[in-house]
């Protein structure tokens, strides 16, 4: 069981959160021509890193906000959490 620090509510049990996947994916710019391969990559392809990883979580049973979490996928240690748009060092 993870104990996750929501940037708005503080430390809460993992039971209150939903995992949202890789937090580094950038949506292609709007109104730009984009190849099918690039679009395919954006929609479907994800890395599966071993170690430090920035991911998104949703405090779905709390403040209902999305935020970023830097977590070690091996040890589950959480190094930092941040609001969307904030930098994770």
């Amino acid at each position, binding site marked *: 069981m993870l104990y996750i620090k929501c940037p*708005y*509510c503080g430390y809460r049990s993992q039971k*209150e959160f939903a995992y949202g996947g890789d937090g580094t994916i950038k949506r292609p710019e709007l109104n730009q021509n984009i190849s099918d391969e690039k679009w395919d990559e954006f929609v479907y392809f994800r890395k599966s890193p071993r170690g430090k990883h920035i991911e998104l979580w949703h405090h779905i*049973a709390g403040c*209902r906000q999305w935020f970023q979490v830097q977590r070690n996928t091996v040890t589950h240690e959480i190094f930092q959490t941040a609001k969307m748009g904030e930098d994770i060092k």
Partner: protein
Amino acid sequence: MTSISSLNFVHKLGKFGDYYEKKDHELLKVSEVNGLLIFQIAKYNKSKFDVSKINIDGLNLPSPLKSSSNLNTRILWFGPDNWLVFSNILDLLAKEKKQFKEENFAITDISNSRTIIELEGNLVNEVLKKGCPLDINNFKEGDCANSVYNGITITIDFISNKPNKVRILGLRSFGESLHHSITDACLEFGYKAI
């Protein structure tokens, strides 16, 4: 819109569980709170409006994880730029609506979409701990928190410490399950449904 409570056929009055040889003040008290006006205030992200100017029934909008209250009205923090207002004054929204300009706020009347169960007694925290992952002992009067109870999304409003009293709010559609979960957790201690 129906005004029949979701617990209308579920919440039976009387004493239940291990209430034998216990005095009334030793028992948990479980009641349903209904007939309130409930509305949600959501400030738009792009809005620069200063919410400290808002005054509802003499109350300001509370800071994160806090509530503000008077005899008739309670306001709970529900998330960033998001609050829930509960009031006995059924025309409060009509009276206060002019403070909320459409370009800054979304106001939604959700009076019929919540089930509220009130728990009172010395063992309230023990009942909460049975199904909720929050560190309950750290919460005190004037706090509020969203969480889960046996998997059901809830909001807990810590009304008072002496006597220990909380309100548990769930979505109406989960009301019956929530009531079952709460009363089931109360059986061990004995409870009086009022």
